């Protein structure tokens, strides 16, 4: 049984725009799954259909084997949803928003009370529980939506851009929280534009573009396909021109103290550093230009590398 099973899902809007062109997607129970894609790729439409806010044109969606067409209520009861945009009543107090959501899922008031306190404490909102939601900061509002999505202890949690606009310290604490939720058995589907986040958290992923799934594989398998990396080198000397080096290194002069170099994955950096050292150039420090997944993502979207066979961890 899959946590989520999508078959031949299509959505054509009334203006004729084909947002989903017959996608197939399977997410294993207990997985931490990334659904990635550029803006307008079809992610939100897909999530909207799963959460039954958007009517599909054709195809099927099953949540833990409950078909949305024939067993909608049971399917919904297994799903927790944190949308990208704030969709709570800003005039309601924090704890009331969560308690109401629990009530909609039929959770008894005593359980709602206990779980609300647990979630608000875990997410650092307990002190704000009596504030109206409009008085919260952006990051707090995001955490409020996570708490709301978890009040009925869903088996499948969809997080649509959960850390958008959240500072790095808070983002990391939210990552820890999500990992813990996943460790306890909740399947999580994450969409994010922070690909570092997806790379660190998710075991499997799908990339959607122009309404089609262009990758559906494990994170490990995808990262294996990356055959080059870009490093940024900070040089002590003043660089007037691009140093000449031998070997498979593509150098680029960024400014008089900075070099960028593309190197094949199997190639050691030692050779390059020695060559630069021989030319009297001293390297102060270096870093990866972008994270690996980001590089792959851009390549895939620009159709630079071939699709890999489907493989999930």
């Amino acid at each position: 049984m899959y946590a989520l099973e999508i078959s031949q899902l299509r959505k054509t809007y009334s203006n004729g725009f084909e947002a989903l062109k017959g996608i197939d997607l399977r997410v294993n129970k207990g997985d931490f799954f990334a659904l990635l894609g550029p803006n307008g790729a079809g992610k939100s439409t897909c999530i909207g259909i799963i959460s039954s806010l958007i009517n599909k044109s054709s195809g099927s969606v099953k949540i833990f084997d409950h078909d949305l067409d024939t067993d909608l209520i049971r399917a919904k009861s297994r799903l927790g949803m944190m949308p990208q945009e704030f969709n709570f009543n800003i005039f309601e107090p924090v704890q009331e928003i969560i308690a109401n959501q629990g009530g909609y899922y039929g959770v008894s008031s005593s359980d709602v009370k206990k779980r609300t306190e647990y979630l608000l404490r875990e997410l650092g909102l307990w002190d704000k529980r009596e504030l109206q939601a409009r008085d919260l900061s952006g990051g707090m509002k995001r955490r409020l939506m996570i708490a709301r999505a978890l009040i009925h202890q869903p088996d499948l949690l969809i997080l649509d851009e959960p850390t958008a606009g959240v500072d790095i310290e808070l983002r990391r604490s939210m990552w820890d929280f999500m990992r813990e939720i996943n460790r306890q058995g909740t399947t999580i589907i994450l969409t994010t534009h922070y690909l570092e986040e997806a790379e660190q958290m998710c075991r499997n992923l799908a990339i959607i573009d122009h309404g089609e799934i262009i990758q559906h594989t494990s994170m490990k398998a995808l990262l294996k396909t990356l055959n080059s990396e870009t490093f940024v080198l900070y040089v002590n000397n003043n660089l007037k021109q691009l140093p000449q080096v031998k070997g498979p290194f593509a150098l680029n002069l960024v400014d008089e103290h900075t070099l960028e170099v593309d190197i094949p994955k199997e190639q050691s950096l030692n050779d390059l550093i020695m060559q630069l050292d021989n030319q009297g150039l001293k390297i102060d420090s270096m870093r990866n230009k972008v994270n690996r997944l980001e590089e792959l993502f851009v390549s895939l979207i620009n159709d630079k590398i071939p699709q890999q066979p489907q493989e999930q961890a």
Partner: protein
Amino acid sequence: MKNRLHKYWIAYTTITRKEVLRFSRIWVQTIIPPVVTVALYFIIFGNLIGPRIGEMDGMSYIDFIMPGLIMMSIITNSYANVVSSFYGAKFSRHIEEMLVSPIPNVVILLGFLTGGIARGLAVGLAVTVISLVFTNIQIHNLWVIFSVAILTALLFSLAGLINGVYATSFDDISIIPTFVLTPLTYLGGIFYSIQLLPDFWQNASLGNPILYMINSFRFGFLGITDINLGLAFSVIIAFIVILFTISMHLLNRGIGIRT
């Protein structure tokens, strides 16, 4: 099955509680204004102009208009509560909290309707209390008073929900009350007996559903009516059935709330 029904009951009470809290929190905007408006009606039409008008159907004018004024408050407030709450939920998208939850549409509908009825009756009660200052309230048939008040509040809560479903801006939620509801209410026999009208307008008035509600409500207080009570209940119930069916159809199709 029993477990599921229990969950639906919790969901229903949650929506109802939320709706009641919503209008209770802003009681200065929701409860007080209709009370002030009706008090002004009593002062102007009852105390100042009423004695010059004389009796209406054997009653003093202020006593005659009292049931209609209470009914007018119930109608406008039950309608306003549901249309503003439903459209507000759509506008700020917190309707999605319910739409993603495992609640059947009928439970969502009943929750909103109960909120509308609660506000209609709360305002109706407040207006009744204020009318004690100006009139000598008689009770002819308490059962008729309660049943007509509840059924009317239900009917206009349904109408408010349909308006809320179709509304795409805040203008849309005031157009129907201003251009349809208010004229029909004023022409529905609050201030006069239709017996005073020429035959043509008497017959035309019979096409106004609010006439049936006001007259049956007036019967509950004063024991007088221009309309047969059985016919009045039949018309009210028929409208409820029609509007309920339309509301369920709209929610099931997701019109105005799902893409």
